[in-house]
């Protein structure tokens, strides 16, 4: 492309530590080498500390009076918008820096989650699909690919890949030779930067990534050898739409305990299926029931941490080379609850009552650093996992089964009244997760919603349709703040139509 007297404008949105300043200096150096008039500016400041920041560059042809160049990007006035991350591209659109008449948008499609998204108690992620779709609609030309992955592939930092994508898009009046010379001229990590640059260039020119997009989900568990009869029963007696989930559930519960426990799972689901006229309810109940029945006790945690395939995945995750030993330390801090969970119920109740009386429950914890990569550490974890055979006799098992039965009873009764309401009762199971305080808080929230909204509806005191909405609202409130303030407010005045008592 050619450059005129009126400047070509490039805005770069990046986060601290992504090398936006270096990327800017490469473009400036290349432009000066090409004999262009160039100006750049930035607002590092506190944004440099992990915040979002921007760099702005204007380029114009030399000769005659020097054109007046701006220090701010103008709304509707950006030729090349570069974003190092998808939400930053969204922010650029939101600020009016991407317009269909002129803007080439070059953005990485990967996500670096903001603190708001990361601290949400459930799923607080922004709608990435919608941002990507908006990008294609708002830009004159959109160059979108996962530049973070490309940087990893090339063994470099994302700024080199972004520069390659800028060059590959053809949107800047700079020759590839001048840009490569600028990278070489900076004298630092030249080879890896050039590799990143070339990869970015090729991707922008439409070359497909060789690395397939990483699959988000683990594969389903393979069928347990002892599962045949149960899986057969799934196929014979459950709706087709629910079978994948139920099959996973069966296999998971055999893994968690034994085939008899998985049979109990299907027995429980028989009741749900008979009550519900809706395949979706069976699937969702099957999903949450499998999760509730495979609750995270010490035994389960030890089991997960001693799986034969774990260490290979862990080594990949921490990028250990084949010849490098990896020492793994686990952080366990069992307390009264954890000890009680494996004791017989009667004994456990006495232990808990004693600890409560003395105010010891929050205080008595044993901090353990277990090196699971050593033989003794592994054996200790294996021993914990081996407690599985005593699990059924333990206190936690009794508590969990009672809670599960109570919940499923509500699900079944709800399904007979209203499908939408039943779905909400099922989804409440998502509130119960985590460990220690988190787990306790989840149960409190769950119980609060059951007592205030679900049970009165089942007793015919509330309208099921509006109760369904209220349960959903309460569930969202429960995930709004860890202190439970929002939920307390919601439950204090639920927006539910009370049915007149007869």
């Amino acid at each position: 492309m050619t450059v005129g007297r009126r400047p070509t404008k490039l805005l770069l949105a990046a986060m601290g530590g992504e090398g936006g300043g270096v990327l800017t200096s490469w473009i400036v150096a290349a432009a000066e080498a090409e004999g262009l008039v160039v100006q750049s500016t930035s607002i590092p400041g506190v944004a440099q500390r992990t915040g979002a920041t921007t760099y702005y560059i204007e380029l114009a042809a030399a000769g005659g009076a020097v054109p007046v160049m701006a220090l701010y990007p103008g709304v509707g006035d950006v030729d090349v918008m570069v974003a190092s991350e998808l939400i930053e591209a969204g922010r650029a659109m939101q600020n009016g820096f991407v317009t269909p008449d002129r803007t080439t948008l070059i953005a990485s499609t990967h996500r670096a989650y903001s603190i708001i998204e990361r601290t949400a108690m459930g799923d607080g992620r922004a709608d990435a699909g919608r941002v990507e779709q908006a990008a294609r609609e708002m830009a004159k030309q959109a160059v979108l690919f996962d530049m973070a992955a490309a940087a990893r592939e090339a063994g470099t930092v994302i700024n080199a890949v972004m520069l390659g994508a800028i060059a590959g898009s053809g949107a800047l009046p700079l020759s590839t030779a001048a840009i490569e010379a600028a990278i070489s001229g900076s004298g630092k990590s030249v080879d890896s930067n050039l590799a990143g640059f070339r990869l970015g260039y090729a991707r922008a020119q439409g070359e497909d990534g060789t690395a397939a997009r990483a699959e988000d989900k683990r594969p389903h568990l393979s069928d347990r050898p002892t599962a045949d009869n149960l899986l057969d029963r799934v196929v014979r007696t459950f709706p087709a739409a629910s079978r994948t989930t139920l099959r996973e559930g069966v296999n998971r519960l055999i893994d968690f305990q034994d085939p008899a426990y998985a049979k109990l799972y299907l027995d429980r689901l028989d009741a749900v299926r008979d009550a519900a006229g809706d395949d979706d309810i069976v699937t969702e109940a099957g999903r949450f029931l499998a999760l509730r029945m495979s609750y995270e006790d010490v035994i389960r945690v030890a089991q997960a941490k001693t799986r034969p395939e774990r260490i290979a995945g862990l080594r990949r995750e921490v990028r250990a080379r084949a010849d490098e030993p990896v020492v793994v330390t686990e952080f366990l801090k069992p307390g009264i609850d954890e000890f009680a969970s494996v004791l017989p119920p009667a004994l456990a109740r006495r232990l808990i009552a004693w600890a409560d009386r003395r105010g010891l429950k929050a205080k008595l914890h044993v901090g353990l650093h277990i090196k699971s990569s050593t033989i003794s550490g592994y054996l200790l974890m294996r021993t914990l996992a081996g407690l599985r055979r005593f699990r059924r006799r333990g206190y936690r098992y009794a508590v969990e089964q009672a809670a599960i039965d109570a919940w499923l009873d509500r699900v079944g009764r709800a399904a007979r009244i209203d499908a939408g309401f039943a779905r909400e009762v099922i989804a409440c199971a998502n509130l119960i997760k985590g460990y220690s305080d988190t787990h306790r808080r989840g149960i409190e929230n769950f119980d609060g919603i059951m007592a205030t909204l679900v049970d009165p509806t089942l007793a015919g005191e509330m309208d099921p349709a509006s109760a369904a909405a209220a349960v959903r609202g309460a569930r969202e409130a429960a995930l709004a703040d860890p202190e439970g303030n929002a939920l307390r407010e919601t439950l204090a005045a639920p927006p539910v139509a009370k049915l007149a008592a007869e």
Partner: protein
Amino acid sequence: MERSFKKEVQSLRLGDGETFHGEGILAVTKALLQSGVSYVGGYQGAPISHLMDVLVDAEDILDDLGVHLETCTSEAAAAAMLGASINYPLRGAATWKATVGTNVASDALSNLASAGVKGGAMIVIGEDYGEGASIIQERSHAFAMKSQMWLLDPRPNLPTITRMVEQGFELSEHSNTPVMLELRIRACHVHGSFPTRDNRRPQFSRNQVIEHPDFDFSRICLPPSTYAQEKHKIEFRLPAAIRFIAENGLNETFDGDVGEIGIICQGGLYNSVMRGLDQLGLTDADGNSRLPILALNVTYPLVPDEITAFCAGKKAVLMVEEGQPDFLEQAVNVALRKADLQTRVFGKDVLPMAGEYTSEVVLNGLGGFIAGTRPAGVDAEAVAARLAALMAGKTRAAELLGAAMPTRPPSFCTGCPERPVFSAIKILEKEIGPTHMAADIGCHTFSTLPPFNLGNTVLGYGMGLASAAGVAPNMGKRVISIMGDGGFWHNGLTNGVGSAMFNKDDGVLMIMKNGYTSATGWQFLPSSAQDRTGKDPGMSIEAALKGLGVRWLRKVRTYHVAEMIKVLREAMTSKDKGLKVIIADGECQLARQRRIRPKIAAQLKRGERVVRTRFGVDDETCTGDHSCIRLSGCPSLTIKPNPDPLRTDPVAHVDNSCVGCGLCGEVSHAAVLCPSFYKAEIVQNPRWLDRLLDRVRRAVIGRLAGAAA
């Protein structure tokens, strides 16, 4: 320092007829040397931190010219340094961020401005206003007016900025008045070029010392001299300045064919005005404005004759003036009134009174001005249509995006040593309940942002403890005051600790000792392990505290969360009345990483054994509650889609930027969170014993695991 300028400072040696290419701050430094300064000093802070960094990296060039550099411990010290120009023909410059730095400096500044200067005195002010600013939003303009100092606000291109530095010194000497050169954030960081001249050796310097001290009571700030000084300001200095500004054309007028209206703007906003006019179709083919513009490179004092000459014959002008109050708009109105001109002044009616004048703000202001004046020769409808078209993109994007994008407030860096302190406070809060926390200025101010949301007030740099003096006696629990080591040496030692000890105040002071003024870019401070020459400064926080009589003093490694909780609990509940000081000790992780990374790379290259530590999360046991993130906020502790086919909420995930600081493990223990975290120690270049042990372990564990499956 955050950034090395060793390479860039070579351009400070450029001479006559050469061209400088580089950043605004570096260009200003070059202009100072071209102006023949004898001394420079300052206190770092964005956006002028780099000015101090450049000077430190250019010390050999300064030595050669005999220029003295002082890295002051506060802006007050830097301002007082300018006192050298009161009695002697020494040119000097000081720099700091405004307006906070000017606040700290104002005692010395008032005295300096009253006494007046013989040698040119310049303060380079980084006006930290608008997007990217880290401080309260105020203007430096008021300081210029109240103390009678001249305020330069050059058009933001390097030729104009450097010319104003040079002419600023002349203006200062002609009018015996210190001048302030105001640079906005983007101007400080603008990369451009300008033609250079040879550096000027100062008449007097370390290489050419003054033989006789000058005594002149009229330059002492004591009555009756102070009365005479005030009169001198009005009767001599101000008229001399106005004459100099007018005669030397410091302000610039640009003609345009639309004669009915015109624009007066602060020099620093000129480029935004030009771009706005261009966007609205109010420029010609060469990009020249069709509206006449008066660009004020000097915003205080104004030259009334220039204002009236520009406005004469115009039905309206637009005053483009960033920030509030609208000092310039008022002054322009007064000038017009006195000259009995009927030109209408637009300004804060079509532009906002407060906030940064971004491109978009100026664009809309210009649109309002055209709509309000409808000058002959301009198609006002076409201008309005262009403006509407430009703004339509935002509306469309908002529709397509559906929701506002999540913001990214700044936070503690990966592995920051200050984060664990706030994790500890947050965990202890659950046990003893919340209390008032007097926050301070520094990286630790980020504690007031998510995920910690800790800190009730911020009263200024080093003022954390002092700001607790009033609230502490009225609070049911002990107040926790925070102070960084930067703030401690800047102000906190005297105003905070000194005052608290003198008044026998009861309270808890947490001093973050990370070894640098890190928020401003890792400049050295008195308690750093080394100073800019690489030597131990031989000053310590502990010794200073003991010197002031502090008896309850503990030092805790910040990453030891459990220990920090214990010590903090003791400080909060101890029967011991008086000031209890905890030094939270941990080197700035960014600086540490920069220090150790090359060393580790060299060790690895030599084949030495190096253990790399990082943390991870078992995604099978993580249930996606994210309470670990709420107690940390570390950028490397993030989320990823849940790999469990039965779950949907994202799980916690440690990415590869983890530096293995250990906080994740400490927090999951201290707060009894969950067993999902693991620590991985990767042995690089393992010795034969490592390999053997690993082989045996893997073989045995492999068998055991296989037996289980």
